[in-house]
């Protein structure tokens, strides 16, 4: 039963396993499921293992049991368009409000998220009119925020309203907040970086090594011999180089800042440097890149166990990377091509990663990204990417 449903879930990217599907069948057989509501709840708790997929589950459920349409890929474009409107709104609130025929004050009261919703709504209305009214999941009202006017931090708990049908609950899409599109937060960043550790014994010998103690005691025929060890401490050295120049990095400033702040809390031995677009002979310790230059050559004296993390979009004009003396800053003259310098860095630091705030699917379209990728393993600046980067950095060789 419900095999289609199972495959639909898989198709939409929810990792449901056959085992769990059989388990659901067992629940059905045991008579635990007596209504569609029961099925909605049972199937979710048995099949779906992360709240990030709850929203997707709701969509598939609504589609399967009522024929509500799944959002088409166009939805993504809509989102982009809404984002542009939001930017427009920040620049010129009055003009935009007039264009949309809405009160400026009314809009000003909304939180950014709500605004986004509102814009999305308006764009949708327009495209619908264009296409002659394709069907959309219809819980949104016409008021500026409609149904999503709930508090942004929390989610609605649907169990309250018993009279609601399961499909209705699913249509509510209560778990929207948890779907994967959400940007990185501090806590998530912490989760990802937590594993970046390098434990080595330091300090006085004040830990009893039980195994050795027993061994030594036995060796001496029961005469107790306590063996002490040093404590393990995290002595990971991290060098973080951040591209903080140019408009191309502007959209990512916030998320990079988050990464930087977290890294500062997390690592005791962290050195941060800044550069613009790419690295020539110097990086700078101060963000404006004026006062404290630091020669790249000096890095070659660093402990090779140091983890090097470079954050940048790696997007620039090809000559900046390939040509000797390629810097766009007149005062930054160099005999080496940036590519050479990066190559050297990659050779000195065996554990290095390049974290790129641009999405992975864009990488193939930028030549300089491709060149740099050949030198440094590159990862997306997303939770997933960070996780992979950390795993790569902790590899023993």
């Amino acid at each position, binding site marked *: 039963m419900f095999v289609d449903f199972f495959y639909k879930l898989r198709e939409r990217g929810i990792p449901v396993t056959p085992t769990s599907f059989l388990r659901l069948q067992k629940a059905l057989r045991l008579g635990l499921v007596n209504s569609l509501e029961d099925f909605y709840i049972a199937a979710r708790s048995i099949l779906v293992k992360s*709240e990030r997929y709850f929203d997707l589950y709701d969509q598939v459920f609504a589609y399967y049991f009522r024929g509500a349409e799944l959002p088409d890929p166009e939805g993504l474009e809509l989102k982009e368009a809404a984002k542009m409107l939001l930017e427009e709104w920040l620049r010129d609130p009055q003009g935009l409000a007039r264009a949309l025929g809405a009160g400026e004050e009314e809009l000003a009261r909304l939180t950014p998220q709500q605004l986004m919703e509102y814009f999305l709504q308006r764009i949708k209305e327009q495209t619908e009119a264009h296409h002659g009214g394709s069907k959309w999941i219809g819980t949104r009202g016409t008021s500026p925020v409609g149904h999503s006017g709930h508090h942004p931090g929390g989610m609605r708990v649907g169990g309250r309203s018993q009279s609601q049908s399961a499909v209705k609950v699913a249509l509510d899409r209560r778990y929207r907040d948890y779907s994967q599109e959400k940007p990185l937060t501090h806590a998530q960043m912490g989760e990802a970086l937590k594993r970046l550790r390098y434990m080595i014994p330091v300090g006085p010998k004040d830990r009893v090594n039980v195994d050795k103690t027993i061994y030594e005691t036995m060796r001496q025929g029961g005469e107790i011999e306590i063996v002490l060890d040093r404590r393990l401490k995290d002595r990971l050295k991290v060098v973080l180089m951040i591209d903080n120049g140019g408009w191309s990095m502007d959209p990512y400033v916030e998320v990079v800042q988050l990464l930087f702040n977290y890294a500062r809390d997390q690592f005791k031995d962290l050195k941060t440097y800044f550069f613009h677009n790419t690295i020539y002979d110097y990086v700078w310790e101060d963000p404006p890149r004026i006062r404290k230059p630091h020669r790249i050559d000096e890095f070659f004296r660093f402990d090779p166990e140091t983890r090097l993390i470079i954050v940048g979009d790696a997007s620039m004009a090809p000559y900046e990377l390939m040509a000797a003396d390629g810097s766009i800053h007149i005062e930054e003259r160099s005999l080496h091509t940036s590519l050479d310098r990066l190559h050297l860095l990659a050779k000195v630091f065996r554990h290095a990663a390049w974290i790129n705030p641009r999405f992975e699917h864009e990488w193939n379209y930028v030549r300089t990204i491709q060149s740099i990728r050949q030198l440094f393993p590159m990862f997306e600046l997303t939770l997933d990417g960070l996780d992979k980067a950390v795993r790569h950095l902790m590899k023993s060789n």
Partner: protein
Amino acid sequence: MNSQLQNQRFTGGSKYVLDPELAKIVNISIELELPLLLKGEPGTGKTMLAHAIAEALNMPLIVLNVKSSMKLVDALYQYDTLTRLNDSRFGDSQRDVSNIEEYIKMGKIGQAFASDWRVVLLIDEIDKADTDFQDDMLDVLDQMHFDIIEIDKTIKAKNRPVIIITSNAKKDLSDPFLGRCNFHHIAFPTPEIMREIVGVHFPQLDRDLAKACLETFYRLREIPGVEKKPATRELINWIRALRSDPDFQSGRLSKGEVPYLGVLFKKSSDFVTAAQHIARFRH
């Protein structure tokens, strides 16, 4: 085989307000004999749920508080080598040194297995341990038995415990782990449910005061830039503080004042942010 279970349905505890959706999930997990993994932000009552189940089904509760340094064997049993060594050298106890079994102590999972009654086993904050621990533990809970290597003995569960596992992690647990659990994410309570929760804790609380408190509480939760938002526990403590203050009147809340702010915001940076926010929006 489930006859004894079937009449044991979970409907909620005396101090716990149960979402009917969650009640169904708990019942399904009990009958499918699967551990139930609960996630959700702190203060959504994950741990409380296990207590409520134990109370409602009248079973003893065994709590395993997972720590980061924990090894699986610690949760199963402990071989007290030090006592044995001591006994063997000084021999001043009643124990028989040659019988290792006398030096085996059961850990929390061991206790749950060895118990003569069916118990509720709460494994709290599983995310603190490393993934090996998590996977190995699920093996044990799957098979319902483990070996004590030192005495070559297998401990089998007399009764399959009701297993509740909680996790605070933002990150997902490993796939094999998730594959063996039922999963639920507890959302933060809506104001209506919160009203009930408050009602359970303070049965004689004045209606207007409760309303004012909740409104303020949910408004405070929305202050941007706060790292640790106040949760249920903070709200309960806050109401307790307000009630114990003889000078307090509920009208003050609707004016935007928030006394005892420190009860709600426990991090000093959050406290400052919240205080500034309140000062700005006072009317």
